[in-house]
């Protein structure tokens, strides 16, 4: 067990180092959410006047939305990195060492989780700078961060699985562009559920992004509904485990294909 943990850590460390040594990439990962934050913040400022947002400042409502959307959009590209490692021969090199197959995949998961957590915290802090208010306090923010990490894990793992199975950049790009906006807008990320058309609200009930949204927003409110946090959080955790399991299966399937 300790070997598995050590190996997972080596794999994580390796990727964190890449992240840290490519400052341009790190900055872009952090700048994009800032753009969302201020673009949507300015565009929809007046929308809180409609009511149902549970706050009088749209920024308060928007911050969790951008955190969750950013978690989705940065993790869904994980498969590109895996694809690059396959093409470069790195994955095959690791596969001929005694390293655990699960450690190879879990290193990705832990790395993506840490980056997502960092990204989420930065967005929350930027919101704070912009005047956002978080009545749920640090505990609420922590729930939001965990929820976005879990959501990121689901889509990061699926993206990795796709990269290993299809092995085409185009497929990953196609699926990501197809999914990102519908998943974001078929949720309460930018609009209060009470203001959404009924059919959209029903679809949103099945949208994992919306689960992360609901869990985070509820925990960050003045009166958290811990039942919502537990049920949506639990569902995300379940999906994340399934995603990781699938990505390990995909690794085995990749090995059969070479």
């Amino acid at each position, binding site marked *: 067990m300790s070997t598995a943990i050590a190996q997972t850590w080596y794999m994580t460390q*390796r990727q964190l180092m890449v992240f840290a040594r490519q400052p341009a990439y790190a900055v872009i990962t952090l700048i994009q959410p800032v753009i969302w934050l201020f673009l949507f913040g300015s565009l929809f400022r007046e929308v809180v006047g409609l009511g149902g947002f549970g706050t009088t400042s749209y920024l308060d409502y928007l911050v969790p939305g951008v955190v969750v959307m950013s978690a989705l959009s940065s993790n869904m590209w994980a498969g590109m990195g895996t694809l690059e490692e396959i093409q470069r021969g790195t994955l095959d090199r690791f596969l001929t060492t005694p390293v655990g197959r699960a450690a190879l995949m879990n290193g990705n998961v832990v790395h993506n989780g840490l980056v997502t957590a960092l990204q989420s915290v930065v967005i929350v802090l930027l919101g704070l700078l912009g005047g956002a208010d978080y009545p749920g306090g640090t505990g609420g923010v922590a729930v939001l961060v965990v929820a976005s990490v879990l959501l990121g894990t689901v889509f990061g793992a699926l993206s990795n699985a796709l990269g290993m199975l299809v092995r085409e950049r185009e497929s990953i790009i196609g699926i990501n562009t197809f999914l990102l906006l519908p998943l974001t807008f078929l949720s309460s990320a930018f609009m209060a559920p009470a203001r959404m058309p009924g059919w959209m609200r029903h679809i949103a009930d099945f949208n994992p992004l919306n689960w992360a949204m609901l869990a985070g927003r509820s925990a960050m409110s003045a009166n958290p509904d811990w039942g919502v946090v537990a049920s949506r959080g639990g569902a995300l955790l379940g999906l994340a485990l399934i995603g990781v399991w699938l990505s390990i299966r995909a690794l085995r399937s990749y090995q059969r294909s070479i």
Partner: protein
Amino acid sequence: MSGTRAPAVEARQLIKTYPGGVTALNGMDLTVEPGTVLGLLGPNGAGKSTTVKMLTTLARPDSGSASVAGHDVLRHPDRVRRAIGVVAQNSGADPVATGRENLRLQGRLHGLRGAALDRRADELLERFSLTDAARRPVKGYSGGMRRRLDVALGLVHRPEVLFLDEPSTGLDPEARTAMWDEIGHLAGEEGLTILLTTHYLEEADRLAERVAIVDRGRIVVEGTPDALKGELRGDAVHLELREPLGEGGRTLIAGALGALPGVHEALVDGRRVSVRADDGAAAVPALLAALERAGLTVAAATVARPSLDDVYLRYAGRRYADAEAAGAHAAHDDADAPAGPGADPRTDSVSLTGGAR
């Protein structure tokens, strides 16, 4: 070999067919004795890399069995992985990490820790002349430096069996020579068994104690380079005719050259005729005259000592460069074989009766 030690690598009847019906391996049998260097020689697409993938536990055969360092690759892949070093065509050193960091990670994956890991990394950096570059990111390395790092990565845990897949492909001549020297040193090390794949005849000739020629997913012949070349008696005389031979070409050549003394065997391939002769230079005038009498004009004639190319031609039934071109769809390729008019990949072999021993 005393025969008391088990082979370092043993493969029996490996078969692998990829989706789409591409047969990569078609009954591959292979044995490598401990402490020796075996060169797996063949054109791109012959099945060398697939064989290496199976022996290094990356891919599984459809059928057949294999063991490496005494461990069954299918039943105990983990034991195999501990015993082998793999230098693939693309070893994928992390370009953002330094040479030293790449080595240390590889060592850790093999269970090296602490001072032992540091020592081993430094030792390998020194040995492969990478000490000065050790703290620089790999993306700034030259092709030769990168390849040396690849080999170092494969050696970090002192493997029993080292797999080198196309070790010098893509290197400039200078880096290639340096790599060959390095592999030569490795081969001399106590107990290290090396399985090397190459599509350079020269590389196999120079580095391998034994050469196995792979064609279309199986070994067609195996032996020491000298023994293989020795089986081809005398010199090779390559004649290029002005006109391609028609239907009766085989018979025509057999008739024309059959009676010449000291001339053994002729292989006909489009416009090219390759003849074995006890003394090549001496045989040329007689050959030219004989072909002239048969109404064939010779455009060019060359005499050569037997090479692995001739061995390949003899056992695979086609010229090495043609096989390379045929397999070129498989990979990047530097063979620019002239596909002669109406070039048939199959070569006709004509036994000549006149060439008595």
